[in-house]
């Protein structure tokens, strides 16, 4: 490097530093916490949220921030474990954030929410679907950009009785909070609709082989299988079922309504039904978000990316509209203001559930999830 360029570079760096210093003197950044599983076995559900938050914040900051203040992220990992979630929450609170995006898993969210509630922090989760989080009224500070499990369980049950006209079904789940909750609700609604649930069982997530339980399904002579859980197990199940020549209707939840499922299950995914957030991929904002992700991180975004994107946008919008980072004003703004996000034109109801964005049933056709009207 020539000496002159060197001098220039040094000068540029110094002036940048000074400038950013000046800016921070005039307007301290608004800090937003992002908490969830970013390492460990569930990292694949948490990392997309960090990416989403980073992208939104980058956009906002490029436009000069909100209310003249830049936005800064405080990212903390909880590995989806409740005891780590409380530490992550305490850390986020100590960092003086004004609101939190997270957590990812319902269990960790429950553990952390107590701390956020006592510290008066708005918390928006992109993925915690456990119904009592909003319905119990215990957590007035909690919002989510995903519909609770009972909404989609009801939809799945109605779909399999009214549209598919199934008479006898098997319901499987992954024993987890989310999967089992969904499965239990589907069982309940399906039985109310007069469908016989011949089999209701949990299987071990991560096991290499499910052929025993697949045999059991075959033996039960059902005409449909409901799966409550995530896509890795779902793809093994459909694969092993079709390998054994069983062509049953397979209905699942939004843990499966993920393109990774189609990628992994390949030809076996054909015909699988899944309930999931209403398709917004034709939404120009969603297209932009996904494009940005590809540009920034070099890959397709993962699970709950758009939900997290919308959560961050809704939060920043509320802060902008409230013109303040005061807890009560943010809550009021979240519940009254509508905002355009990749999920559509959304707001939140009094309990904290998302408005303007619901669930639909999808089916895999030619390697793509197609919304069934």
């Amino acid at each position, binding site marked *: 490097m020539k000496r002159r360029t060197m001098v220039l570079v040094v000068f540029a760096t110094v002036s940048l530093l000074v400038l950013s210093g000046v800016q921070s003197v005039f307007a301290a950044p608004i800090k937003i916490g992002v908490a969830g599983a*970013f*390492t*460990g076995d569930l*990292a694949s559900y948490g*990392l997309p949220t960090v990416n989403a938050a980073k992208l939104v914040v980058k956009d906002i900051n490029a436009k000069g921030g909100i209310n003249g203040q830049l936005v800064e992220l405080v*990212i*903390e*990992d909880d590995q*989806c*474990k*409740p*005891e780590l*979630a*409380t*530490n992550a929450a*305490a*850390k986020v*609170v*100590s960092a003086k954030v004004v609101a939190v995006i997270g957590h990812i898993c*319902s*269990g960790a969210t*429950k*553990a952390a929410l*107590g*701390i956020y509630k*006592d*510290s008066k922090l708005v918390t928006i989760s992109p993925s915690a679907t*456990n119904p009592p989080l909003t319905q119990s009224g*215990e957590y007035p500070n909690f919002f989510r950009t995903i519909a609770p499990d009972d909404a989609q369980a009801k939809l799945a049950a109605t779909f399999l009785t009214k549209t598919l006209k199934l008479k006898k079904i098997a319901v499987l789940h992954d*024993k*987890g*909070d989310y999967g*089992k*909750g969904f499965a239990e609700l589907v069982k309940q609604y399906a039985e109310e609709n007069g469908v016989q649930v011949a089999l209701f069982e*949990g299987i071990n997530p991560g096991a290499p082989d499910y052929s025993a339980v697949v045999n059991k399904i075959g033996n039960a002579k059902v005409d449909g299988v409901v799966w409550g859980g995530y896509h890795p197990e779902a793809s093994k199940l459909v694969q092993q079922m079709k390998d054994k020549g069983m062509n049953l209707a397979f209905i699942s939840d939004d843990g499966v309504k993920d393109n990774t499922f189609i*990628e992994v299950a*390949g*030809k076996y995914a054909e015909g699988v039904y899944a309930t999931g957030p209403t398709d917004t991929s034709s939404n120009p904002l969603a297209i932009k978000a996904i494009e940005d992700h590809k540009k920034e991180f070099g*890959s397709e975004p993962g699970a709950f990316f758009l939900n997290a994107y919308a959560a961050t946008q809704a939060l920043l919008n509320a802060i902008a509209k409230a013109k303040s980072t005061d807890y009560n004003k943010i809550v009021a703004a979240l519940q009254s203001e509508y905002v355009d996000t990749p999920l559509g034109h959304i707001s939140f109801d009094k309990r904290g559930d998302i408005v303007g964005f619901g669930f639909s049933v999808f089916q895999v056709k030619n*390697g793509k999830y197609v919304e069934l009207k």
Partner: protein
Amino acid sequence: MKLRSILADIGKSLATAVWFMVLLFPLMVMKVNVARGVAQIQFRWNLLPLVGVGAFVLSYAWRIALEWNERRGANKSEGMSSRIRAAGAAYLARPAVRTSSLLVLLAFVIAFPFLFGMYHTNVMITAFIYVILGLGLNIVVGLGGLLNLGYAAFFGVGAYTYGLIWKYIGPSFVAAGMDPGWLFWISLPLAGIIATLFGILLSLPVLRLRGDYLAIITLAFGEIFRMVMQNSGDLTGGATGISLIPRPWFFGQKLPPTKAATYIYFIAIVLVIITIFVVRRIEDSRVGRALEAMREDEVACEAMGIDLVKNKLITFALGAFWAGIAGVLMAAQTTYINPDSFTLWESIIILMAVVIGGTGSIPGVIGGAILLKLLPEYFRALAQYRMLIYGIAMILVIIFKPDGLIPRKRKQYTFERKEATK
């Protein structure tokens, strides 16, 4: 001569660098992505020189460190550093110094929550919970020499005792106008007792087994416990767990989170001190000596007239008791429990705390537990590299200190002839 050995070292490191460049090539340089069933490879050539240079430098440092480690092991009694250390130890052993340094430590520990705020207090509570767990497991592994890979189950028994008491008795307790925080104080001794009973119950069938077979059985029990908690949803809340568990009673006041953390912090300290005290007494007692004999050699021990069955039972029971206590504390701190907190991985972490600290050494285990819980917290700055660095740190510690950070000192009983006072 000197130059030649340096050249040879450089040569070896170069060879290592090449080896790692080849070894890590597919995973580091080629990044795979599967789309439509077809794997696509993206080459990241810029990482290759990084691997090479990194491996070269690290292997050089590694060799020096290993040599230094060996030399240190060979002449332990000589050298400046060991003499300084011996002098330091002698200085510390003086009663006045000991008491005053203990007092300073105590003052620091008491001042901690007021100095560092809620986050650090919370982290320290977790660390203290692990200190209790580590000391409890140390009775089993360090004293009794029985490898237990299902220790988290007893931890879970404790947490669930509190959780279930809250779930079933809590509502009527509140309805009667009582403060639910009292349940914590009721659960604390109860959880200890129930965990002890579980310890006895589970150890009964496995008394015949030895070594790693015992380890795998404890692993099995641990997993079965978790599965039962997970599957009996109506009774235990299943995978959903039990939430909103009350914080401990504090003169009928509802504390804000910062103060509640401080309060639990002090409860944890008191429990830690009690644990240390009791565990030390156990070590020095007749039972403790019998357990140590059992660890050294079961057959010889039996020949000396020590009842192995009874001793194994005692080991498991004592170990389980502290896990139960720690469980209640954990439930009170997180206010939410579910079966995922009591996995095999949890048992492994507790075992790591014991071994890395120094199996059988009380100060070692305390240090190990605190280190193991604090490192990942303070490694948060490393973001996604955290667990990688954590694993590397564990390997390094155990290779350079295979007996643990503060190894156990063998007990020496010196016979002092009492002077006739008359």
